């Protein structure tokens, strides 16, 4: 399977999902998703509210157990075993409001076994924020909070990035910068999933758009225009 020298091996599926079903009582969030995703790609996951985008991401992150179906990340059956390999960012900030950005990132670094602050400062500057900023995260603007949350997700240099609405409430200029950063990471070989409603931001950056509707992947297209005209 992982024959190193062929091109095919380079694009080995890093994540495979088979017949993934998730139901919350009678509401079917995921109705049988089967897909595999290659490493080193930036995927834009698009779809209306309730299409199952967030649930899919939470299943991949191991935060939600699927009702049926299997998830394999880097060959490991249970996402929890691969938790060191992915960074997760959600709609809520996942940060402590009373602590400054640096304090937050330093605490989460400790959870990943990272002791030195240089790495923390580096991931904060990478998202375009100032590590020395003393203000507690609670007083940040929503856009800054989203970027600090991204810094927390990038902290341990994960192979996979699972980002849920990273650009919401972020001004256009900083959103474009974030996209540039994500594209740069993709070029370094990381696999990036971006769930978003501002699909236009990913034009030219995303390798593939994954269209979801009513808990299923209905289409995977190289660019956004194809879906709109169809």
């Amino acid at each position, binding site marked *: 399977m992982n024959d190193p020298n062929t091109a095919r091996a380079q694009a080995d599926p890093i994540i495979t999902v088979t017949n993934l*079903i998730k*139901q*919350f009582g*009678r509401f079917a969030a995921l109705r*049988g998703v089967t897909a595999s995703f290659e490493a080193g790609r930036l995927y834009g996951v698009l779809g*209306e509210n309730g299409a199952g985008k967030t649930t899919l991401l939470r299943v991949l992150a191991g935060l939600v157990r699927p009702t049926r179906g299997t998830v394999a990340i880097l060959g490991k059956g249970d996402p929890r075993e691969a938790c060191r390999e992915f960074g997760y960012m959600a709609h809520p900030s996942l940060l402590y409001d009373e602590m400054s950005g640096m304090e937050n990132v330093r605490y989460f670094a400790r959870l990943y076994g990272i002791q030195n602050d240089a790495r923390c400062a580096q991931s904060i500057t990478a998202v375009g924020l100032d590590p020395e900023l003393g203000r507690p995260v609670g007083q940040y603007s929503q856009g800054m909070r989203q970027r600090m949350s991204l810094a927390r997700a990038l902290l341990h240099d994960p192979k996979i990035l699972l980002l849920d609405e990273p650009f919401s409430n972020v001004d256009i200029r900083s959103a474009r910068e974030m996209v540039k950063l994500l594209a740069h990471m993709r070029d370094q070989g990381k696999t990036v999933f971006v769930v978003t409603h501002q699909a236009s931001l990913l034009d030219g950056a995303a390798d593939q758009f994954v269209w979801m509707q*009513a808990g299923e992947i209905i289409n995977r297209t190289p660019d956004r225009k194809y879906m709109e005209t169809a």
Partner: protein
Amino acid sequence: MKKAFPILGLLTAALLSFALYEALVVAPREQTMGDVQRIFYYHVPSAWTAFLLFAINFLASVQYLVRPRPQADKIANWIVIALGALTSIGAYVVRPLPQNMYPSSVVTTGVAIVGLYFLIKKYFSEQETDILALTTAEVGVVFCTVVLVTGPLWARPVWGIWWTWDVRLTSTLVLWLIYVSYLMLRRFSTSGQTPVLAAALAVFGALDVPLVYFSIWFFRTQHPQPVIGGGGSIDPRMLHVLLINWLAFLCFAFLVCWSRYRLEQLQREVEETQALEALLEPRSTVR
């Protein structure tokens, strides 16, 4: 199997009425307390049945927690066997046993626990152990309520007080509180994994039982209280009637558990079909 239920029902009804007759008429009249002592034949069997049901709940909950983790499963097997051995040896080594616990009865309980554990292990799937835990908890609480109602009704005429901090009665009260909180957790839980939370609480509750018993037992030695059911040995004829009543109540409890079990199974099947239907429904997304 379906038609066995009414036959068993009739048999149990007959057994219950025979036991009632034995308790009211045949059993010898107790000198000091008089006829009111006959509450004993309902009070004690209900308590024993409740404890048995809670023991099954504990064993089923442990099964539910360990089955998905094979390594924990092996450890649990050894702990149960060790527990059984310990109680059997302890029955003869520990002197004095708390009042009117005979070594033979302690050994039988120890062996029964181990037997039940491996029986559940063999015949119940993971999902079924959860249903079994819920059923035995619910029916156990009903029997426990009976004990807590008949207890004071017995204490009142004999000692003029409604409640006595008797070791067994108080332990039953605490057990009742624990399992009512267990049932409330199951009803109020909004989690997808309610059985896991309930199983954890059941294990905690069971760990608590010996501590409850010994804390109240020592509490009682410091504040002597009248004891329900007397301390000394028991007239063989009374014991005979007691065992008949216990058998009758066990059959009754078995039937109630069986129907509650089937009810829960049906409930889950209905929920599953409804969920399946929602799955296959035409693609309607939230606009």
